[in-house]
């Protein structure tokens, strides 16, 4: 009799803690009423939210309900990479006031982020910046959060405010932490970032990188696994750190939202169990903690929390910001979903964030194939985007490319193809990286000619492709548009009823063609002080076209 009871108890426990429990909690979020948005002051920019139309994929929208496309880049200088510890550039905001910019450091692969950088971004037509931050700088000692670090983030948010840009604050990591151990000569901790020393449990695993991939390191995999299983409550500390940041920006619409965890590595777990039973439940708990919604079931904290577990309200009460949730890292390799695509939360402002590295980190590239004649992905560049649309729809989330990039030599092939997919799937992007000061070769800018310079000149191929005409906001979430970077030609087909919200087409300074329109629309063109133009298209009832005629591009970049 006792054996019978124990067997059934075991089955109930395993079912509750694994897929059956996870499925019930996930589906329950789909029928739970969405929480009411928290109130907050209006600001320099419109609050963003995720709109949930009945017949199309959810999308990021402004207060008028218009779809918003975020274009931006990713400056990396607020990150702490190894092998040392502590910020390389000053956190004291005074060092950046009145246009000052600290000297470039040879200790960092990235130059300091200054006001001039955001002005340069805005001049390229970027309306957002994805700002990666390191947990190790945010909480260098357990339970003690760095106000100076968040002050520095707030300074950048203020710069963005002055330029009417959004900031996505991204809790970043690469290969878990640079405290995983220097190991042998295969390990270069200059490429690791993330967790502080006190939260990095490698359990004596050797730090040795295999196949040249920083993640394929037993110490990294062990430390990552310990995080997902909440060893010693480190996941609780991470959520507290995120809450510390979120409470600072609770009422600030310039902060579009938070990237909860960058490029989640599976550790010793395997997909799809990793995503469905560890990663996405962790995201749900992060949303519970920040917003106060209670989607999971009440559980303990401080050690392993199974998939159905929710999390306590950490008192931030933020129900307005977007929550960007990255797919598992392996998805970058497969360009194929590595999770079930279950609903995540009753909180409506969830954005599924993919990293688009087709032919760079996908299987074909890792096996040595060249992008031009790769045999994978079978669906080409579209495979990742098409499936991501389906994943986002199943999760009732908007879609965003929170990271993509490539070597400049591949711009005509890879960058062009990625941007075409983003147009086709109407998704915004964040380009990695903004600037590099040496060692790297992917930046928007060439490396600096002198060590102290922040960067070299703007790469002309990047300017040509990324400073593009696009609809920044539109009342028609099903519109189609295309920008041709060879001659600046732009065409957008949309439709709307009289009185519908205006569509705003941004045309960068470098695109010089004439703006025209056709059909049921009234267009007013605003000439902006920086030489760009914005065409405000008000529908009058029916189909309409806004176009920019081909003309030589006025590019300023080099190369």
């Amino acid at each position, binding site marked *: 009799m006792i054996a019978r009871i124990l067997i059934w108890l075991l089955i109930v426990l395993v*079912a509750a803690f694994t897929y*059956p429990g996870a499925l019930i909690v996930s589906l329950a979020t789909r029928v739970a009423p969405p929480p009411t948005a928290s109130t907050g002051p209006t600001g320099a920019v419109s609050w963003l939210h995720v709109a949930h139309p009945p017949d199309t994929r959810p999308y990021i929208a402004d207060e008028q309900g218009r779809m918003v496309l975020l274009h931006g880049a990713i400056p990396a200088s607020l990150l702490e990479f190894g092998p040392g510890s502590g910020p390389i550039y000053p956190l004291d905001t005074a060092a950046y006031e009145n246009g000052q910019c600290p000297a470039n450091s040879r200790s960092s692969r990235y130059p300091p982020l200054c006001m001039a950088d955001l002005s340069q971004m805005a001049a390229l037509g970027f309306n957002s910046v994805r700002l990666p931050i390191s947990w190790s700088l945010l909480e260098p000692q357990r339970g003690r959060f760095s106000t100076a670090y968040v002050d520095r983030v707030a300074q950048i948010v203020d710069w963005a405010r002055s330029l009417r840009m959004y900031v996505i604050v991204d809790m970043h990591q690469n290969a878990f932490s640079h405290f995983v151990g220097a190991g042998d000569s295969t390990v270069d901790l200059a490429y690791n970032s993330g967790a502080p020393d006190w939260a990095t449990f490698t359990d004596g695993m050797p730090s040795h990188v295999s196949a040249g991939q920083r993640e394929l390191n037993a110490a990294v995999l062990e430390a990552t696994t310990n995080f997902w299983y909440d060893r010693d409550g480190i996941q609780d500390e991470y959520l507290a750190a995120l809450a510390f940041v979120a409470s600072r920006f609770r009422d600030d619409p310039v902060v579009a939202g938070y990237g909860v965890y960058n490029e989640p590595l599976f550790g010793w777990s395997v997909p799809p*169990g990793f995503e469905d039973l560890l990663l996405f439940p962790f995201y749900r708990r992060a949303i519970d903690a920040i917003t106060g919604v209670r989607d999971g079931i009440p559980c303990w904290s401080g050690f392993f929390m199974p998939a159905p577990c929710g999390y306590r309200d950490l008192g931030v009460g933020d129900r307005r910001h977007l929550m960007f949730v990255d797919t598992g890292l392996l998805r970058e390799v497969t360009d194929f979903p590595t999770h079930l695509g279950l609903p995540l939360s009753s909180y409506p402002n969830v954005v599924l964030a993919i990293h688009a590295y087709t032919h760079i980190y996908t299987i074909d590239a890792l096996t040595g194939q060249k992008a031009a004649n790769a045999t994978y992905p079978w669906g080409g560049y579209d495979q990742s985007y098409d499936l991501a649309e389906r994943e986002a729809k199943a999760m009732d989330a908007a879609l965003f490319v929170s990271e993509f990039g490539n070597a400049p030599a591949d711009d005509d092939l890879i960058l062009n193809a990625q941007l075409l997919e983003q147009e086709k799937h109407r998704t915004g992007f964040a380009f990695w990286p903004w600037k590099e000061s040496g060692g790297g070769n992917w930046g928007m800018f060439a490396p600096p000619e002198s060590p102290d310079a922040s960067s070299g000149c703007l790469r002309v191929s990047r300017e040509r492709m990324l400073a593009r005409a696009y609809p920044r906001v539109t009342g028609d979430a099903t519109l189609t548009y295309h920008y041709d970077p060879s001659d600046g030609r732009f065409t957008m087909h949309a439709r709307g009823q009289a009185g519908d919200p205006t569509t705003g087409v941004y045309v960068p300074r470098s695109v010089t063609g004439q703006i025209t329109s056709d059909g049921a629309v009234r267009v007013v063109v605003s000439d902006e002080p920086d030489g760009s133009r914005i065409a405000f298209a008000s529908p009058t009832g029916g189909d309409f076209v806004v176009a920019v005629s081909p003309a030589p591009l006025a590019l300023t970049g080099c190369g």
Partner: protein
Amino acid sequence: MRDRAATRALVLGLLALPFGVFAPFAIWSGARSLRRIRASGGELRGGASAGGGLIAGLIGLATFLIGTAYWLIAS
């Protein structure tokens, strides 16, 4: 005497909860073991394990089917 397949069914059933791919094997193994135990007239034991494995397999299969159906419908 204990039916050997009963324990196998229970293990497969428990595995089917996190890994749905094991569900058909758990169901098959549990059903066969239960049938043998009932036909033995009390000679074979392990009914609880076999039944548990069968139920766990069915839960695993149902979860797998519902999850897949949700994906197909919602996406």
